[in-house]
């Protein structure tokens, strides 16, 4: 069990190196485009250009440029944005990360709980009206674009019905740190959580139902029933436990890409200053250092989460433990 984990860590480091090199190459080593001008921003003064060229080593060979960039990102953390008047990029991301993490974690709790409930119920009552209703709801959830849903919810809770008893508790858009007031933190996030979770509830409940239905045809489920176990126990201890293997691996990937900035639309709609919104702003102002940093950040997250998923896989599926 330890050896596969170690091997996985080694692979992770290798993949991280590959991604950083690739991202660097895309932004700074594209032939025919001078990265200096792009970092310095539009219509920069020649002095600024010269300063940037020195600072990033654009007059030196590529490997040195790569090393400087990595040093600025991970060691000295003084990568600065010129479009934004010298704002340091790494601390900016560090400030944004907890917001995104709060948003995504809350949404993940909602979507995991709801989708397991819906998927198991639908599978248990396969073919009934309940099954059809739940799966139709799931499909509706998948089909609603998150930015549209967010805007509509905002319209209802912030505007049209804000003065009614139902939504008068809803705070204005924005984020309150947990350390400042846990209650306000919760109030400011509960609606974004639900909105972000809707699509995933749909996807996950449908996947789980399909998995469970397939598993119900397996021989071991027949054995479990022949043992005299109750239908609930057969479905949960034998069926759901086996179906969770797929579920967890999907979850890890989705969670990682959301934390890495995939919740961009939700963050923008609800005015949450998270990593997604930061990326959005960086793209708007073509702030190259910030884009570089957010891409690296999200890549690191996805790769690390992938490694975690693999570790969870080892725990969940004994067959994988012995492989190789």
């Amino acid at each position: 069990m330890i050896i596969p984990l170690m091997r996985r860590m080694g692979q992770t480091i290798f993949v991280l190196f590959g991604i950083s090199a690739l991202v660097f190459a895309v932004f700074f080593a594209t032939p025919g485009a001078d990265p200096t001008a792009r970092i310095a921003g539009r219509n920069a003064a020649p002095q600024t250009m010269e300063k940037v060229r020195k600072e990033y080593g654009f007059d030196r060979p590529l490997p040195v440029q790569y090393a400087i960039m990595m040093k600025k990102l991970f060691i000295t953390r003084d990568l600065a944005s010129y479009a934004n008047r010298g704002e340091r990029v790494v601390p900016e991301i560090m400030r944004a990360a907890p917001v995104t993490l709060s948003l995504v974690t809350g949404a993940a709790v909602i979507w995991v709980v709801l989708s397991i409930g819906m998927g198991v119920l639908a599978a248990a009552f396969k073919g009934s009206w309940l099954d059809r209703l739940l799966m139709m709801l799931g499909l509706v959830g998948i089909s609603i674009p998150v930015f549209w849903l967010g805007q509509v919810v905002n319209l209802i809770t912030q505007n049209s019905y804000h003065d009614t008893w139902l939504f008068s508790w809803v705070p204005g858009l924005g984020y309150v740190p947990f350390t400042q007031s846990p209650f306000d933190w919760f109030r400011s996030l509960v609606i974004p959580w639900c909105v972000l979770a809707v699509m995933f509830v749909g996807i996950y409940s449908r996947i789980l139902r399909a998995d469970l239905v397939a598993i119900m045809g397996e021989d071991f489920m027949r054995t479990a029933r022949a043992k005299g176990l109750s239908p609930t126990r057969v479905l949960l201890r034998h069926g759901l436990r086996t179906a969770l293997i797929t579920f967890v691996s999907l979850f890890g990937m989705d969670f990682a890409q959301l934390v890495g900035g995939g919740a961009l639309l939700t963050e923008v709609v609800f005015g949450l200053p998270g990593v997604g919104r930061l990326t959005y702003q960086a793209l708007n102002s073509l702030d190259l250092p910030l884009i570089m940093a957010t891409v690296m950040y999200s890549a690191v997250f996805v790769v690390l989460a992938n490694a975690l998923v693999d570790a969870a896989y080892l725990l969940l599926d004994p067959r994988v433990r012995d492989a190789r």
Partner: protein
Amino acid sequence: MPVNAPLLEVQNLCVSFATRGQMIPIVENISFSIGEQEILGLVGESGSGKSVTAMALMGLIDAPGVRITGMALFKGQDLLAMSGKQLRTLRGQEIAMIFQDPMTAFTPVYTIGWQIDEQLRVHQKLSRRQARARTVELLGEMGVPDPLNTANRYPHQLSGGLRQRAMIAMALSCNPSLLIADEPTTALDVTVQAQILDLMRNLRKTYGSSVLLITHDMGVVAETCDKTLVLYSGRVAETGTTQALFAHPQHPYTAALLASIPPMSGPRPERLPAIPGSPPQPLERPAGCAFAPRCTYSHATCLPAPPPAFHAINSHHKVACLLPMEGTPLPPRFSANTTATV
């Protein structure tokens, strides 16, 4: 319950499935009985309804639109009329089942021991520790080497033979009076097969269990079973003691099946006789004798409905064929003492 009533008595069991508004009869009017500590072989080719019969007895068919009629008296209670809950307390406790493919019959994510413990703890008030002690003991009795460690292994870590032994250990964990074995040896190689059959034969002595052995292998039947029931296309073709049935098959189907086994002695045949054609689809079953289209002895009286009634050769041996009734029974096949070596 009278003293010498059979443990399980099945009468006129019919199972049909609804497909596109049509009822497709899979099993028609099967009747048989199993006495205490008796081994009954249920023989037939794929699709003849062997497994469906077993699943119907266990209440494990939950396809929508299935219709099961008839009676199955187990210790005086009708299995087919029981509520799901009643049946559940019997399953695993009084009637246990082992399956064809031990590769897929265990839940892959739990250890063998955990799964046997689970069955013990569902039916008996045992602590975790007591259940595990019993599990290890059972595995040992089934000839599993190093049962203590094997109990902590996952299904995929065991060989097919070991897995089937663990499966049998699980089935026997609550001392069931009836064990239904659905092709327990089909997925195993021949030496392991012999060991498993040995194990099953000894069950009645050590555990006092009766066995319903489902197989398509006449050799397995000859080696193991006291009585044999031959199924063809969802109907009983012939039933009798294994010895009588092998020595004097009365149904042309049984005779043809036995003739297709390579003989152990005498001159080597150039070609083994085969039964031409294939069994009919359940919907295209002939109105009369289902075997008539493939039977060398079929004649005009075989064809009209209803299918031939049972003709009793003696009190144990019955055959659903017109030949003995018309006074032209099949000749005896070979002497009784060669049957043991089939």
